[in-house]
């Protein structure tokens, strides 16, 4: 994904609030993970609904994804989704039953879009 002007503005605003190294790490982590979602707009719609439904926090979502995906390549993502469904880690969004990893990625897309990271 290319960083656009909006991302830079959001980043600049958050830089004023966060310690420099921590913010940079968060942006790097989230960008690596969000690269798994080419259509972030669509994912953000799902993510927004879930965040509003279950009051997810950006740092918790990011931390959880880092643990689950550890580096974030597509194979790990597929494995994590399959494991979620096997283990019952299923999230319900307006009737849609999706893997928790999928929901967290969508939430991350929403947080990114909203400038909450």
């Amino acid at each position, binding site marked *: 994904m290319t960083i656009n002007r909006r991302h830079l503005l959001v980043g600049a605003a958050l830089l004023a609030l966060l310690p420099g190294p921590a913010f940079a790490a968060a942006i790097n982590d989230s960008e690596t993970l969000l690269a*798994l*979602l*080419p*259509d972030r*707009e*669509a*994912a953000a*719609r*799902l993510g927004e*609904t879930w965040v509003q439904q279950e009051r997810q926090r950006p740092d918790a979502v990011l931390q959880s994804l880092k643990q689950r995906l550890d580096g974030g390549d*597509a194979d790990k*993502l*597929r494995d994590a*989704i*399959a494991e*979620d*469904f*096997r283990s*019952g880690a*299923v999230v*319900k*969004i*307006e*009737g*849609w*039953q*999706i*893997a928790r990893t*999928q929901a967290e*990625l*969508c939430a991350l897309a929403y947080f990114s879009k909203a400038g909450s990271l």
Partner: protein
Amino acid sequence: MFIDGRSLPSGTVIETDIAIIGAGAAGITLARELRDSGREITLIESGSLELEADTQALYEGESGAVEYPLAESRLRFFGGTTNHWGGWCRPLLPIDFEGRDALQIPAWPLSRAELEPYYRRAQPVCQLGAFDFDDPEPWQARTGLAPIELPGDDLITRFFIYSPPTRFGEVYRDDVAKAAKVKTYLNSNVVEILPNTEANRVERLKVATLGGNGFEIRPKLCILAVGGIENARLLLASNSVQTTGLGNGNDLVGRYFMEHVTAPGDVAAIALADETRIPYYYVHTPDVDHASMRAILMPSDAYLQRSNGLGISLSLYEAHKPGAEPKADAKQLEPAVIAMLKSLGSDAERSGMIYGVACALEPVPSPENRVTLTRDRDALGLPKLRLTWRPTRTERDALTDNLGALARTFGAWGGAVKVLVPEGTDWADDEIGWGNHHMGTTRMAADPKQGIVDANGRVHGIGNLLIAGSSVFPSCGAVNPTYTIVALAIRMADHIKGGSLG
């Protein structure tokens, strides 16, 4: 030979070896199977060869819970309800015969293995092709479609074979008419089965017509085969000697009515970005030997056992493109789900599709779901019936559990499932659908305190009264009943011919 019962002088007495009451799937099958047995067969049908409104009105009754279309879901003329049968055929699963104590689903007093040869003989009767209900290879050979290797072991792929459907009253009319030993009385309604004073043997059948005349049939052996609801009604109304109803010494006649629970619409939607393989589940094969097939999903035995779940048949069809129904999905999450799925490795060039999921759910037999008589009477003076039926919370929870299994299975495979049935709630009236499958009201059990008929269909305590049809099912799995009705009728005819049923 067909005889119009309205033409007989009142008071006529007909002696016969075997009286079969009702010319539907069971009755016609029995008559055909017994036509060369050397016995005189009398087949008694309420209707004529075509639907007539005054006869059909004899089916009217009351609903005690869910508003149930008693007069519309059954047909009362030669061929019975096969005259509007959908043709879905599949044998019950072996586990369906075994019972599940935790759900109070009784075992059948016979096994699937015992019924298997009769299922195979029912195959040509229902004009089906080969016995390919479980093997994917013949179906794959016909369609060229590869099955989905579903992850996990919750769901399995099985097949329904469609009868054309066989309209028994048309397809087998000549067989019955030309059989030398079979006399069919049309427009003839048995209004009471009269036993001896000990109520352990049927002596006479009192017959009335809408023409006003009446006559009597004296059979050596009587087979009641007027359908899953009407079998109970006629036994309850046959109360001149046994005042609670014939065969009803244990207050069981009419109880345990079962229906396959469905929904008026879909119960789930499946979103897939890559729809190349899903047609396996909704494409019908071209006709092969008059029959076509379709694949369905069912829970595995392992899933049913570990979840204490109920059986279900899940059928899929192509519904719409994502976002094509914005009113149903105000937040436009469908296209968002598809886009997310594409992001996760599916072929992004494909457009994605939403698939509808319909179901037939196994019911739990409940004594509160039942047929009783009312004070109102029909045009022949027979008490009308009240059907009290409502699916229970157990069935509701089993349905949402099964849909959760569907979601897990397709989710792990690369799709996403939207469950359209809210969890943790009871049924709202407008959420209840049914299959027009009437079962269980004279159920089969080895113990007379648990059921009306024994494993061979003989009424406990009444040596020459047999019951055929879906009213004898103690449980019913999640498959349509007609094919099993025919298999059981063939089996009953064999036992009669072998002398074990009189």
